[in-house]
């Protein structure tokens, strides 16, 4: 029996015995490899291609549980939905979310981000207001930047009031490409968001 088989079997048995607190796997995307992590409650972390996967796993071990195991089969549903989204064939993710890595005002903002429909954008100011504090625009921006579930929770749909793209954890080219995919931005260089 190969080592790989033994380790896969261990993952299954750990899950069956309720010992698999965080299952993770890599996933392909048009932008490079993603990291997907999931608890029994739902998707808890999406790591973008330019983020350090090892550091993300250490953060999960520290903040959620050290029982972190690579278990690709458990992320099949998430991987399938993301594939469809990147192909332009899925507009709404139907995955349970685990917000363990967030809290307070940031969580409030992120929950509001989760409600922005496909192909639409909002401003940081609007997000601050929807989260209950219109003047906390800067904090709303920070909350977008700390979104533990990028792409699935569409922080790329939040822009500057003047129409500027703002920032993105995965890099601005990725934000731009996601907005183009959703038909918000023209394919021309230079952003001109349709509202």
């Amino acid at each position, binding site marked *: *029996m190969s*080592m790989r088989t*033994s*380790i896969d*079997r*261990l993952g299954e*048995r*750990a899950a069956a*015995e309720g*010992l698999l607190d*965080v299952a*993770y796997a890599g996933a392909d995307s048009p932008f490079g490899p993603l990291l997907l992590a999931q608890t029994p409650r739902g998707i808890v972390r999406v790591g973008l291609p330019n983020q350090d996967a090892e550091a993300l*796993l*250490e953060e*999960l*071990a*520290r903040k959620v*549980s*050290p*029982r*972190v*195991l*690579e278990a690709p089969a458990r992320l099949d549903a998430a991987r399938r939905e993301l594939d469809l989204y990147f192909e332009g064939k899925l507009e709404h993710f139907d995955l349970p979310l685990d917000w363990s890595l967030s809290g307070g005002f940031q969580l409030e903002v992120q929950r509001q981000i989760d409600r922005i429909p496909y192909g639409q954008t909002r401003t940081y100011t609007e997000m601050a207001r929807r989260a209950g504090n219109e003047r906390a625009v800067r904090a709303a921006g920070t909350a977008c930047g700390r979104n533990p579930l990028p792409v699935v929770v569409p922080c790329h749909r939040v822009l500057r009031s003047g129409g500027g793209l703002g920032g993105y954890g995965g890099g601005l080219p990725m934000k731009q490409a996601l907005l183009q995919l959703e038909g918000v931005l023209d394919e021309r260089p230079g952003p001109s968001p349709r509202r």
Partner: protein
Amino acid sequence: MGRLILRVIALPPFQTLIDEHAAEVMAVLRGAVGRDGAEDCFQETFLSALRGYPQLREAGNLRGWLITIAHRKAIDHHRARGRAPVPVAEVAEVAVEAPEPDEDGVWLAVGALPPKQRTAVTLRYASDLPHAEIAAALGCSPEAARRSLHEGLKRLRKELA
């Protein structure tokens, strides 16, 4: 009175323990219980480790911790089987069929040693544990551990000569 100092230990993701030590744990178990029992003991070892992992207070020697658990599982395995050493007939049969008799042959011979000697030899050579840790794993004095190791090696030399 002294202050209570809470030391925050950062446990690495459990997957790193698997990536770094699974092969060695398997080798130790093959030495201790033979090829057939090793897979079950491997599963039991890592499930047990996973169960206790979040409560671990010390992350300095995770490898030693895993090896100790593996050893306990090997002992459980032998107890469950009435602590029978691997029958000689079985050893001969496998040894003849094995395509690479060199390394396998050594481990089969190790597997045929009496339990304490087998464990001492395995922990010393598959896991590179010092005598003190072998003694702790065996639950005996370092002197007794050294003796078990010595006896085991003497017997192996005779078997493999």
